[in-house]
């Protein structure tokens, strides 16, 4: 799976890494049990401090999304429990997004359409993020 990091974005780099691995797991682009790069390797490839990647991995590990094993790297948590945690995390994020859309004056139909389009793009491969 290819992750894209925008250094000019207002979203911190560690958050971009977390979000994209979460999306990759949700869309099936990263399979349960699949090996992820070590913190040092991913940091070298992105060109950031290893602490940044470590922060992203810590967040994913505390959410039960990945299983990290020191220098050996990390794998996507293959257990069913992890899928539940992933779904929980997704639900929380979706609620936050819907709430901010409502506060921003976006209608319910528009929000539904945006979510549907996003799901279509990710699950049916009709475009990238």
């Amino acid at each position, binding site marked *: *799976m*290819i*992750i*894209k*990091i*925008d*250094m*000019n974005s207002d979203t911190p*780099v560690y958050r971009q890494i977390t979000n994209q*691995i979460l999306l*990759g797991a949700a869309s099936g682009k*990263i399979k349960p049990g699949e*090996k*992820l*790069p*070590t913190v*040092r*390797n*991913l940091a*070298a*490839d*992105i*060109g*950031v401090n290893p602490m940044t990647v470590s922060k992203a991995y810590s967040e994913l590990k505390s959410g039960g999304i990945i299983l990290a094993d020191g220098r050996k*790297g990390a794998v996507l948590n293959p257990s069913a429990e992890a899928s539940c945690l992933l779904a929980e995390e997704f639900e929380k994020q979706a609620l936050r997004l819907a709430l901010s859309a409502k506060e921003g004056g976006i209608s319910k139909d528009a929000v539904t359409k945006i979510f549907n389009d996003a799901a279509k793009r990710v699950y049916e491969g009709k475009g990238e993020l």
Partner: protein
Amino acid sequence: MYGIFVLLIIWACCVIMTAALLTASRRGSRILGISFAKDSGKLKEAQALLKSYRIKAVAAAVIFAAVSALALTKPAKGFADLFLAVLLVLFIAAQNVLWVSARKKLQALGGEAESENRVEVDLTVSAEKGKGSVPAVIVWVFFALSFAPAAVSAAFEEYRSALYIAISVSAVLCQLIFTLIYYQMRRLPARLVSDDIETARIIARRTEKIQTAGAAVNAFLSLVFWIAVYIAAAFHYSAAFLFFPAFPVAIAVNAVVSSQLLNKLETEYSDRAKEARSSGATVKFGCYYNPDDPRVFVPKAIESMGWTINLATKTGKTIFATIWIFVAAVIAVVACLSLMGFEVKTEGDTLIIDAPFYGESVSRGDITGIELTEDLPPAVRTNGYGGSEKSYGHFSVEGYGDCLLYAYNDVDEFIVISTGRKDAPCIFINDESADETEKLYAELCEWYENDKN
């Protein structure tokens, strides 16, 4: 001999740097880190610009080599070290200007600068990083072998007189640098040149193998070089010096071979269409500048060329300023040491040797004898300055131990002042010519005899 040796080292730096720039200047359809579509008509114009850049880069190297040879001439001898230091800084600056201006022309031609602030990473490829490398144990064996000169000198007394501490330490430090370069090659960011995972994986592994093999070969060449230096110095085998120019040539050939292999790999496998990207990044003083990018260290567009500093950050500015203050300080110290000489004078009961950083004064009572000699035993610098015209500071002199030496290199006559001091049992001094040295000797003898009377 010293001047030629320094010049050879400077030329070696020049050859290696020029070879690195020339070989890194093209990777497939990327020219100086600027991408052109393979089927684009502009690629041919870009190739012409690349050719022009390469000619200018080689011309700059040839001019530098020719001008630096002036350091061996008589008028330049007094300030040869300063001259070479300034010339080297100017050469690096000139190569940087040529590189940046060629990149600007390529961008004006319509090429896309590989944006350093939008990064794409294939997690599968990144997870396999290190698997295609040449085993690290090889470079560590070379590193262990670099201790050989020091070990031989320490173990066998007959070679201890030729214990060149500077050579032994330099060999180890140099080998350590090549070991670190090997790891740097292993950790280079893997570029995405194919959307197909299997192809991307193959390219990443092969790239890693070529880069780490190149680094291992360089480490081996460095080991051979330092062992040759040690043999030449310890056994006074001057013919070994003829081998030295082969070292930069071999490093340059290795760089060219590695580059050709990488180029071939990318040309054969790359199938990824380049995306047009907008980048807020610019170049200032030869460094990356992007106020929107929070990173301090940013990988260069051409991975094998290492990292650059983001000058838009406070830390980046501080690092940049520190590096240039350090360079300026080195040049100032070299200027001070090479332009200022040493002066020997007497004031009352004290003999004063006035020299930058290594001045010394000896009271008449401490002196046990003064004599003139034309036979200075082999001396090795332990803490001092060794220039093309003069040398001074602390030297280990065979048969005398740790001594102070203030010498004009071309003058064979020396005044030997014996003292009762443990830190400097002998002081060796001469003047700009044999006649001046004899005159100084007469003055010192008269001053010393006055005490006895």
